[in-house]
């Protein structure tokens, strides 16, 4: 979104541009400015301040201690594990969601009553909140109450029993919840490809695979870039699905970075300074990762 509006056209100049006009503009924009300033700019500055200060949850600011919070953050015994797990989860979730989103979109792109029904059923889960969806699957995966409970008992296996099974089960939940959403974004992208290009390809005798790899994929690149960035950002910040569904287990194998921030701040350690330091690190990592992605997508454009 940010990239796009940077290039969006400014409104055509009006005939009279008086001080009153500017003042009225500011007056209409002032609630936005107030919210952005108080609830975004100030907290953003505050998090940097906190990350450099001793700041326990209950007693508040105890003065600057830079860079103690950052060393404590990196030395946390779950830091490396959570970073590795978050990256692993992000890569898997992104590949699955982009591939399935595109697959579903190709499947339902022509309009017919049946395909409209399919679209709606793929989209319905995305109306649920992630917390509600996680709670739903918590019951669904349960070895006591879930529909597959007898099967799990016979096999001596459960959905959340081992680290790999827990990750796979969470990925299934995420695909269920988000595949429709990514399908929708892909449909919008597919719609922008002019139909006569496909017509021309068919005249030239291109088969389905050629049409897909030589026309659909290259022309869909802006959409693929947008969806990948969205998906990577969202997955790096994963919290609810692990907090509710796996609770970080089994054996602390599914702790994400945001979960680590939460637990450092509010569960046990109660250290807002270290949590703020971790948040700053996440912010920096996210900016770097997004810049790299934008470069990569732009770079492959030129070649």
């Amino acid at each position: 979104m940010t990239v796009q509006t940077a290039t969006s056209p400014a409104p055509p100049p009006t005939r009279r541009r008086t001080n009153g006009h500017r003042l009225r503009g500011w007056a209409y924009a002032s609630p936005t400015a107030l919210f952005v300033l108080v609830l975004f700019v100030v907290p953003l500055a505050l998090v940097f301040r906190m990350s450099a200060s001793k700041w326990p949850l209950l007693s508040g600011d105890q003065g600057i201690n830079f860079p103690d919070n950052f060393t404590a953050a990196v030395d946390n015994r779950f830091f490396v594990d959570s970073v590795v797990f978050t990256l692993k989860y992000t890569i898997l979730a992104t590949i699955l969601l982009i591939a399935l989103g595109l697959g579903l979109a190709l499947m339902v792109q022509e309009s017919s009553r049946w395909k409209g029904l399919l679209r709606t059923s793929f989209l319905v889960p995305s109306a649920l909140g992630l917390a509600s969806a996680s709670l739903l699957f918590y019951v669904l995966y349960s070895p006591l109450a879930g529909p597959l409970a007898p099967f799990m008992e016979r096999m001596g296996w459960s959905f959340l029993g081992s680290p790999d099974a827990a990750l796979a089960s969470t990925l299934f939940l995420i695909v269920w919840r988000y595949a429709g959403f990514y399908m929708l974004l892909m449909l919008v992208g597919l719609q922008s490809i002019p139909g006569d290009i496909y017509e021309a390809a068919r005249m030239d005798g291109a088969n389905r695979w050629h049409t897909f790899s030589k026309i659909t994929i290259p022309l869909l690149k802006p959409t693929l870039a947008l969806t990948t960035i969205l998906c990577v950002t969202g997955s790096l910040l994963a919290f609810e699905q692990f907090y509710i569904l796996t609770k970080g287990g089994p054996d602390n194998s599914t702790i994400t970075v945001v979960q680590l921030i939460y637990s450092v701040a509010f569960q046990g350690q109660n250290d807002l300074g270290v949590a703020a330091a971790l948040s700053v690190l996440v912010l920096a990592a996210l900016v770097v990762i997004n810049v790299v992605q934008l470069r990569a997508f732009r770079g492959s454009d030129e070649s």
Partner: protein
Amino acid sequence: MTIATVTHADPTAELPPVRRSAPPTTIAGLALRTPFWVFSGALAVVFLFPLVWTSVASVSPKPGTGQVDGWGFGNYVTLAHYQAGIWQYLANSVIVSGLCVILTLAISTLGGYAFARFRFPGRNALFMLTLAILMVPYATLLIPLYVLLNTLGLQNSLVGVALVLTMFQLPFSTFMMRISFESIPRELDEAAMVDGCSSFSALWRVLLPAVRPGLITVGLFAFLAAWNDFFAPLILINDSNKLTLPLAVANLRVQVQGVVDYGATEAGVVVLALPCIVLFLLLQRHYVRGFMSGALKG
């Protein structure tokens, strides 16, 4: 890059145009399409099954839940009497979502109008800053917001949660309202102003009816986000009487020492999901259009 504004009435039905002509309905054609129907139908079942199963399981008998024998609403009764009572949590969620929707609509309408129709110093900077909210992780902002709301006397307050959720809605809603206003011909409000309307009454009487689809999209998104949000109230609310519904249902799982009441959890999921699904089905075309009009076209 251009901004695609969709103007047709039902994007779900019309999206996207037919590219390949469907095979003629012959016996051979039917035979060819049967595997597709079976496969796609099975996929649709996979997507719908969890929802259907939960709704059915919430009213079916199960030992260890509020509904031991026979079908009925025992689990919902358990849910209703959980701690402060479901009505309290529902009321909390309604307050947070309602406030968030009203604030988001008001702020983004005024802001969108300002960005679309006025030129003032700092206009682009403010707009970019609003969009930059999207770039910053949720957790990065909530830790300092917890401290900030404490100093503002809004600790443990539903109003505080609503204000924070409104801020997180601003990038999408401001963007959406800006392009909604920009897609309306300038002559419309200029004519109103020539006729003696102030800029505010031009907005209120002339432009607002014209941007209704944008308002519905922004309102729907704000409601879904606020109703479902888990992380902000988790951090900002400590008082168990002020929990919102998702938090209350999540806590419900550990009601009795380590024993999970699955039945009441199912009932809670149904109560949480029902308004979202009903709203989604009613406003599906607006939901879809929200993405379409904000989408990039390369």
